[in-house]
């Protein structure tokens, strides 16, 4: 039975809007909708370039709507968390008065029976507008615009950026080899898998020999020595991106295990100050105690590597071993 692991990835994007989309978003905070002139037509939503030819458009922005006509629609019976409304609604192509292309947006109409092509709709504005397409909460039947709650007015400055938070949850099968590595680490054993074809050993629960494209499993498990030599290292000055927990420069080292061809890459160190990290330093594995166990580590309870007091190895070729 394969085990699955769920994980969520969040991408907090900040997007620059540029001169045309920026003007559109700024106007939304003023409860105005802008299009851009393209020959005889007016593109809504506005683009910097002609969609057909790619030619840059003169920046002639013109106000359209705010009311418009439904050109086409479809009814969303089960909205997702990404949709503008949390109750059934219509997504519609709405041709705003003065525009020659339709804007896709939500229409709050109660039921699909209330919708028809050619129907007139107007925006329901959010009270607090930030320069985002969802400043229009949705469109509603009729000619009259509405406001949701108290109108907090337009943005004080032109809107140049927008935030978009993409968050996705994934469910992945965990290779059996990964679990075997973690299980062994709970007994403070370091293990790898030896390919029966090429004889190379892989640490870290990699499920496949990349040379022979051969799947590995418990039959290929071998014990690895908990001692080795630093072959190379990097000192990372942490950039404070979301999720970064380190604040001070820290080391990541590459460890060649004794009497093997196995290099563990990008390993943390313990009781080894950044200034003392060097190629050739002899190290031993440090294991977490039962109370310190953390989930999600490739090597399970392996916390990192500590200098073991043995003399440094003076071998110029060591530095080449990062794989």
């Amino acid at each position, binding site marked *: 039975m394969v085990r699955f692991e769920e994980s969520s990835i969040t991408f907090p994007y900040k997007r620059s809007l540029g001169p045309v989309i920026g003007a559109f978003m700024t106007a939304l905070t003023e409860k105005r909708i802008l299009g851009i002139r393209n020959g005889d037509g007016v593109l809504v939503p506005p683009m910097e370039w002609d969609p057909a030819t790619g030619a840059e458009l003169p920046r002639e922005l013109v106000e359209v709507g705010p009311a418009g006509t439904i050109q086409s629609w479809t009814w969303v019976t089960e909205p997702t968390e990404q949709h*503008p409304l949390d109750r059934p609604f219509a997504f519609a192509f709405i041709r705003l008065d003065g525009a020659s292309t339709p804007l896709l947006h939500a229409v709050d109409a109660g039921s699909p029976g209330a919708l028809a092509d050619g129907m007139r709709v107007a925006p329901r504005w959010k009270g607090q507008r930030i320069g985002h397409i969802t400043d229009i909460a949705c469109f509603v039947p009729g000619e009259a615009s509405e406001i949701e709650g108290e109108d907090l007015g337009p943005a004080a400055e032109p809107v140049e950026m927008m935030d978009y938070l993409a968050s996705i949850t994934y469910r992945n099968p965990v290779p059996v080899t990964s679990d075997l590595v973690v299980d062994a680490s709970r007994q403070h054993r370091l293990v790898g898998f030896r390919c029966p074809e090429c004889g190379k050993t892989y640490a870290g629960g990699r499920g496949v020999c990349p040379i022979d494209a051969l799947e590995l499993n418990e039959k290929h498990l071998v014990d690895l020595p908990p001692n080795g030599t630093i072959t190379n290292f990097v000192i990372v000055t942490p950039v404070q991106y979301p999720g970064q927990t380190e604040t001070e420069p820290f080391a990541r080292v590459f460890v060649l295990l004794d009497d093997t061809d196995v290099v563990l890459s990008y390993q943390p160190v313990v009781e080894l100050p950044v200034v003392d990290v060097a190629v050739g330093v002899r190290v031993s594995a440090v294991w977490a105690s039962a109370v310190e166990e953390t989930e999600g580590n490739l090597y399970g309870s392996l916390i990192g590597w500590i200098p073991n007091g043995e003399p440094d190895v003076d071998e110029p070729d060591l530095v080449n071993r990062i794989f």
Partner: protein
Amino acid sequence: MPTSTDIAVVGWAPTPMVRHTELSETQLLVRVITDALQPLGLTRSDVDFTCLGSCDYITGQAFSFVGNLDAIGAWPPKRDSHVEMDGAWALYEAWLRLQEGDIDIAVVTGSGRSSTGNPALIYPMEMDPFYLAPIGADPVTLAALQARAVIAAGIADERSMAEVAVRSRGKGTVDELLSGDYVREPLRRHDLPPITDGAAAMVLARGDRARQLVERPAYITGFDHRTECHNPSFRALDDSPSTRIAAEAAGLGDKPVEVAELQAAFTHEELLLRSVLGLGDDVTVNASGGALKANPIMATGLSRIGYAAEHIFGGGTRALAHSTSGPCLQQNLICILEGRS
């Protein structure tokens, strides 16, 4: 520069196509590449070039194709490439690479585990980041709006769409299907593709090597792809000009085809594509069941080319395969395969 017509598909293999697999994407590829090579008597060391098609957004892992390289046996180092697209575009790149004339055998793959994430929530994030992604414009909504346009143009109706579904999946009756509720009017459940995990691998060979490997190679005699504007607001949704131009460039009109494999994930897309490509009733469309039967994202298009090649392997003369990418058939690829006597 005229392109070579001496490059052929000589074999392919799909994995089992399932709603949910316990295998990782790498494991799928390990097995399917072996399955494609073995019947030809080839091993990975015979392969001169690989190109993998996959998508990090679906896998949930940056640079996920690096892990997939474990499946190609990349030691000693190999010529390798990757496209963040359906494997059909990986095939296009391999076909271009073989034109250089210095190598003979290429393997391409397409792979995706759609069940890893929730496609309904992932795909809106791939839309226009300013106007569409923030309102959650999902592919089923956009497909429904295209279906309405195609119906309004007289190219399809709900009954002909249900007929496509019945023929593709081989189950149910049109009347049964039409009694179902709408998911997004005018689309019902049967008009939508399934969520599928799977992968496909294909072997390409050049010149004499192709003829040594199989009795009847499926020669690629035309190959082209074109794209349209990303935002459906600016497109005529009852047409597919990119498909039409790609088909002309690939020489579809030169001679009749017996079969066509179209990557139509929604029923109305098949009817629109048939209309745009001018395929008559004498052309067998999607005998494989198409994307309505199995829709392994990133391998769906490559599988179309695989089934079209099978038609040639089995004695056929000329086949068309189509792949697509983006909302409402935004980007379209046409591959023409021919047998020689």
